């Protein structure tokens, strides 16, 4: 074996350009205001193989370079070639991966290499790099700074040549990344007969994230005579855990996997009302119970809470499911890889639902620090603009390459997300209600004796301790092994293959390998049959030398765990071979009651299933609510509302996200009826995504979301209510069937456990209690069952005084039925003469509004406090939603758009922008409150609607009993005119609004 270097670089000439280099040039201009004349790029391949360099060179244009548009060279760098790089550059930066980090281009190249050289050694490998060659850099810009924008030292390495080195011809050469051999460690017993401090020490140094009580529960387990007896019989150390067992328990019992805070017993004190109460599991009380109550009333809730996603019956033939996840900590450390593994990870949750569902739509919701942030950045973290670019690019690649359209989402900005960005990724799936063999597809059917396969990727050192790591706060020392890069193509091949296996009736049980790796996936499935036996020596590895505990808990991506009946093994393996998917039998289900892990013949873990899953002690926590104090928001006495409107439209939280969202494929599968963009120029904001998943059938599925984190500043309960109401209203705007909607609750919270490092834990926990009480109240009123959810409870950076905690954030996602997408409304104003109505009414609720934050940042006002939007009468709201949805479904509504950030003023502006048309509006009579509140307040329950004059009477009849106020007319003035009675308030050109709205987040670096 020897290393051969091959490089490719774009040819120049008329109509040809180096786009890869150009992207870097434009990004530096947009993010850092650095200009330069040119950036060129070279892609490099380091081929470790037994094929000679001569042979590789002779075929380089068949594989590594496209001879029509690229030059190639072998065993030298292009930089030495005066014909191709004639001018001396100012700097060259080469970026390659660190050893062991997933190199997708390298993997693809290796596949192509074996196509061309079938005789090549099977252990050949290829690693890739990119060199950026800079010309015309100004003197203030150092190569080191340029490099820092091009690579992430956690996973990549860079070699730099500065001006002097360039002039001396001293070119940077990235060398082949030899993987350092991992040191295989025999399983070792760990003595737990030690004092409490030492128990905690073991947990902390081992990144186990177990508290004292949990360590004691483990200690107690090994003191039990019965336990010791059975362990002696199987031949494993009897009175103490092995490292494999302790790691396995730590993963399984992690906050990430067990949701211990949502399961905790909470003593809740409300200092405002004097209430003292006990909440015995927030999850069971406020989420599970209401959904189960609703399950008694409807027949379409097929599977809730216990599987990888919640499943509802959609029609007689098909069921649909949805799941949303967060991937916050990995995205903070490596925005690209972290976000990509987030989206492909939640896709696997869908594939792992029932006997396997097919992912058909993605949603992405991000919370970042301000993109133009000028202040300090916490150590080890990135500027928000870089986080935005990286996260966006990760979910773009993950979603697009997987062939799943991204149909809905949001991006929210607040400076507290500097310490931890939130990256919510959701996926909708579809499956036939019944498989060809008659089994209902939402029910797993494993039996003892079934063979358990690990399918897809291999296990590596990457991804160790993800679950426990995400259960700790971020620090400067957060480990790189918790970060991975996804491989969507390996996953796509696996997905294609497993869905064929499902339809062939081969699968009895399937789940994904996410947090906790095999330990969780096989461990959870083993609950069905009450036991399993795993042989870790059979698990295929990315690199040799992994110790048994590492193999068991590694979260290496793109893996599913699948159970197959013994008689179906041959067919299953043949299917895997056809699809070139690795599938290895690593375990079998038993009914012994034990989670039994071997490494070859030796037993390395032997834990009762019951102890593994139910042995974790319930947390006992304290919460204490007292309303936070804020300076009240008092609107300025004199306001130029025209300017205020333009300023609000340019706020990152309101501004157009088109640059970013347009880069997602939102209509692969040919089903997206309402896309993220609507209107004349196809750039207006859509309220919800609507798809028609069965080709040729206009029946639709609506997907929407709601999020309002800043309301938590005043009351996290109001924050939760607002998120749910917004998700529902967004769905109503396109005409969802309100009798068939289901929700997903994804909570991201700062650490709510009182401790030295979290002195306000009681308050944060009280916020969680209030949020969930509101969630129950609103969901019951809207008959909206939560069918799946997730929580991420340690969203803090650092400790003590410097700690940055995110605002408590609930993302509420919704999916629901739509009987016929041919009767639909979108947010863009349609025709001159259409009548404009406001459904709902405005209240004096400016607390924590976008306008309050904007004016406080500008020192125009001193506070954001006051009345936060509340939902005092959800039954009344729901009645009007039902009426409006029916009206939309009967085809008499042209336009509907909800009011959220920026209130009615911004909503009307967005409707003009979408339609590129004006309107004349009078907001008198839209609420018993001051002008400022009517115009910019964010009261819930409001939707702006237009109907053509022909349908006016029918519409009003449909809305009878709901607060529906005529506010004006769409006209061809090309201006938005708003008055309050006789007082003119706003007169603004549509084109000016478009400009303000589209400028802020463009970030594309100017003209081509």
């Amino acid at each position: 074996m020897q290393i051969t270097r091959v490089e490719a670089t774009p040819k120049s000439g008329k109509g040809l350009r180096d786009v890869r280099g150009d992207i870097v040039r434009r990004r530096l201009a947009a993010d850092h205001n650095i200009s330069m004349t040119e950036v060129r790029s070279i892609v490099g391949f380091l081929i470790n193989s037994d094929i000679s360099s001569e042979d590789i060179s002779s075929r380089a244009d068949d594989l590594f370079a496209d001879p029509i548009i690229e030059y190639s060279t072998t065993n030298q760098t292009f930089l030495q070639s005066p014909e191709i790089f004639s001018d001396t550059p100012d700097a060259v930066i080469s970026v390659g991966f660190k050893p062991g980090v997933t190199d997708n281009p390298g993997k693809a190249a290796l596949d192509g290499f074996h196509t061309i050289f079938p005789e090549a050694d099977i252990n050949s490998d290829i690693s890739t790099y990119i060199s950026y060659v800079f010309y015309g850099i100004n003197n203030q810009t150092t190569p080191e700074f340029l490099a820092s924008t091009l690579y992430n030292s956690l996973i990549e390495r860079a070699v730099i040549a500065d001006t002097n080195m360039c002039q001396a011809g001293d070119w940077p050469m990235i060398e082949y990344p030899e993987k350092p051999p991992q040191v295989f460690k025999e399983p070792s017993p760990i003595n737990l007969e030690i004092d409490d401090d030492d128990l905690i020490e073991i947990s902390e140094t081992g990144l186990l994230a177990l508290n004292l009580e949990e360590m004691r529960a483990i200690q107690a387990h090994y003191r039990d005579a019965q336990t010791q007896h059975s362990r002696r019989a199987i031949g494993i150390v009897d009175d103490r855990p092995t490292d494999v067992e302790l790691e396995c328990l730590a993963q399984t019992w992690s906050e990430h996997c067990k949701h211990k805070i949502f399961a905790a017993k909470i003593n809740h004190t409300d200092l405002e009302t004097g209430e003292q109460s006990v909440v015995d599991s927030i999850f069971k009380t406020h989420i599970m119970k209401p959904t189960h109550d609703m399950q008694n009333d409807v027949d379409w809730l097929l599977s809730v809470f216990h599987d990888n996603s919640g499943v509802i019956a959609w029609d007689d033939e098909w069921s649909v499911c949805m799941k949303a996840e967060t991937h916050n900590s990995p995205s903070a450390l490596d925005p690209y890889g972290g976000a990509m593994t987030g989206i492909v990870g939640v896709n696997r949750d869908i594939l792992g639902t029932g006997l396997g569902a097919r992912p058909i739509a993605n949603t992405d919701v991000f919370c970042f620090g301000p993109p133009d942030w000028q202040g300090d950045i916490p150590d080890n973290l990135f500027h928000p603009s870089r986080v935005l670019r990286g996260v966006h690019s990760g979910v773009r690649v993950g979603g697009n390459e997987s062939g799943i359209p991204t149909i809905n989402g949001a991006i929210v900005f607040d400076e507290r997300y500097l310490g931890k960005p939130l990256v919510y990724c959701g996926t909708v799936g579809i499956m036939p209600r019944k498989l060809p063999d008659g089994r209902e597809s939402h029910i797993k059917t494993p039996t003892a004796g079934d063979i358990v396969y690990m399918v897809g990727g291999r296990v590596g050192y990457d991804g160790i301790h993800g679950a426990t790591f995400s259960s700790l706060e971020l620090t400067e020392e957060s480990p790189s092994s918790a970060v991975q890069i996804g491989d969507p193509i390996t996953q796509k091949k696996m997905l294609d293959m497993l869905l064929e296996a499902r339809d062939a009736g081969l699968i009895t049980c399937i789940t994904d390998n996410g947090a906790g790796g095999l330990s969780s996936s096989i461990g959870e499935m083993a609950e069905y049959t009450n036991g399993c036996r795993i042989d870790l020596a059979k698990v295929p590895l990315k690199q040799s030398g992994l110790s048994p505990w590492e193999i068991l808990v590694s979260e290496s991506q793109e893996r599913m765990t699948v159970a197959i009946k013994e008689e179906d093994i041959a067919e299953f393996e043949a299917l895997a071979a056809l699809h070139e998917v690795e599938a290895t039998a690593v375990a079998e289900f038993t009914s012994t009651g034990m989670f039994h892990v071997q490494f070859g013949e030796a037993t390395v873990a032997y834990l009762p299933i019951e102890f593994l899953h139910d042995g974790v002690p319930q947390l006992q926590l304290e919460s204490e609510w007292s309303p936070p104090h804020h300076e009240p928001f008092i609107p300025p006495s004199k306001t130029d509302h025209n300017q205020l409107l333009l300023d609000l439209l340019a706020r990152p939280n309101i501004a157009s996200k088109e640059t970013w969202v347009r880069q997602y494929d939102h209509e692969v599968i040919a089903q997206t009826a309402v896309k993220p963009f609507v209107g004349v120029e196809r750039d207006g904001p859509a309220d919800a995504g609507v798809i028609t998943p069965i080709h040729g059938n206009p029946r639709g599925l609506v997907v929407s979301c709601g999020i309002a984190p800043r309301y938590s500043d005043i009351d996290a309960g109001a924050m939760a209510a607002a998120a749910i109401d917004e998700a529902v209203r967004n769905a109503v705007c396109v005409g969802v069937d309100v009798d068939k909607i289901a929700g997903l609750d994804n909570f991201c919270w700062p650490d709510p456990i009182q401790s030295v490092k979290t002195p306000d834990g009681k308050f944060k926990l009280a916020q969680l209690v209030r949020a969930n009480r509101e969630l129950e109240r609103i969901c019951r009123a809207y008959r909206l069952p939560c069918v799946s959810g997730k929580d991420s409870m340690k969203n803090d950076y650092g400790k003590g005084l410097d700690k940055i905690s995110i605002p408590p954030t609930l993302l509420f996602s919704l999916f629901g039925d739509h009987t016929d997408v041919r009767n639909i409304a979108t947010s863009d104003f349609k025709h001159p003469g259409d009548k404009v109505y406001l459904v709902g009414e405005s209240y004096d609720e400016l607390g924590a509004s976008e306008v309050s934050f904007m004016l406080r940042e500008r020192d125009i006002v001193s506070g954001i406090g006051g009345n936060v939007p509340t939902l005092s009468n959800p039954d009344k709201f729901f009645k009007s939603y039902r009426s409006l949805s029916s009206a939309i479904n009967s085809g008499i509504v042209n336009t509907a758009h909800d009011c959220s950030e920026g209130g009615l003023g911004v909503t009307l502006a967005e409707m003009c922008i979408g339609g590129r048309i004006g309107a004349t509006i009078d907001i008198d009579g839209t609420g018993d409150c001051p002008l400022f509140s009517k115009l910019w307040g964010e009261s819930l329950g409001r939707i702006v609607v237009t109907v053509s004059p022909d349908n006016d009477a029918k519409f009003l009849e449909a809305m009878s009993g709901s607060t529906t106020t005529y506010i004006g007319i769409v006209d061809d003035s090309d201006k938005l005119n708003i008055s309050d009675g006789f007082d003119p308030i706003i007169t603004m050109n549509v084109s000016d609004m478009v400009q303000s709205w589209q400028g802020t987040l463009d970030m594309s670096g100017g003209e081509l």
Partner: protein
Amino acid sequence: MMYVPKVAVLFGFGINCDHETAAVFDMVGGSSTRVHLNSFISGLDSLDNYDILAVPGGFSFGDHLGSGRLMGNRMRFSLRDELTKFVGAGKPIIGICNGFQVLVKTGLLPGPEGNVPDFVQRASLTLNDSGRYEDRWVTLEFNPDSNCIWTRGMTQIDCPVRHGEGKYVMPNRDKLTKLAANNQITVRYIDPENTKLEPNAVLPFPKSPNGSMMNIAGISDSTGLVFGLMPHPEAIYAQWLHPDFSRGTAPKVKSQLEWEGQGLQIFRNAVDYVISNN
């Protein structure tokens, strides 16, 4: 009984528009099967069993080393004889988006004169000038003088592009001119509000989403049977998929299917072609 043409819709290795591509052929009287590329290579299935081959869109091998390259190589090196036979037998082939990239890298498009493929790459599809993958709707104009059987009778349609590497390049100007003279430039991006523009000047972004030479969106081989294009006609099989549908201004189509969208005719053309030759 009317003959029902059998359509092989290729999938595997990251192709991802296989379901909708199969569906549209079924809507217009074909009978489609999704076939994994390896089924043809291993001999589990044979191209002989089919009348039409479709290479759908997607991200085969993640577009690494250039879109369509690795998939193209697999076909070029492992399916050469079968493809030669298929083309020689006068059977239609379509490549959409990634499928088009595959056909270009394989050398089937634009291909040599005549119906004997030589598997020599003559053009390429490369990174959009914008540097961005984008999903946006474009307007396409079809060449009335083309002999392409897929585009017969078609004039203009709206449909989405969804690609990062859709810029058609043929650095050899003589070859590009010849391609145009042969009427192998089957379909181009146009500005529907300004169709009088110099047809060979590159349209500004985003009317041309990628900066393609001569605004090329799709080409056919000299026989008119092998056709590839970057935009997605299957994505406008129904009117309700058009972004103007909710405004009531989506283009209507005369069809027995009252909801038919503009893109379906391409697939019907090929199915009808096979039927009329049987």
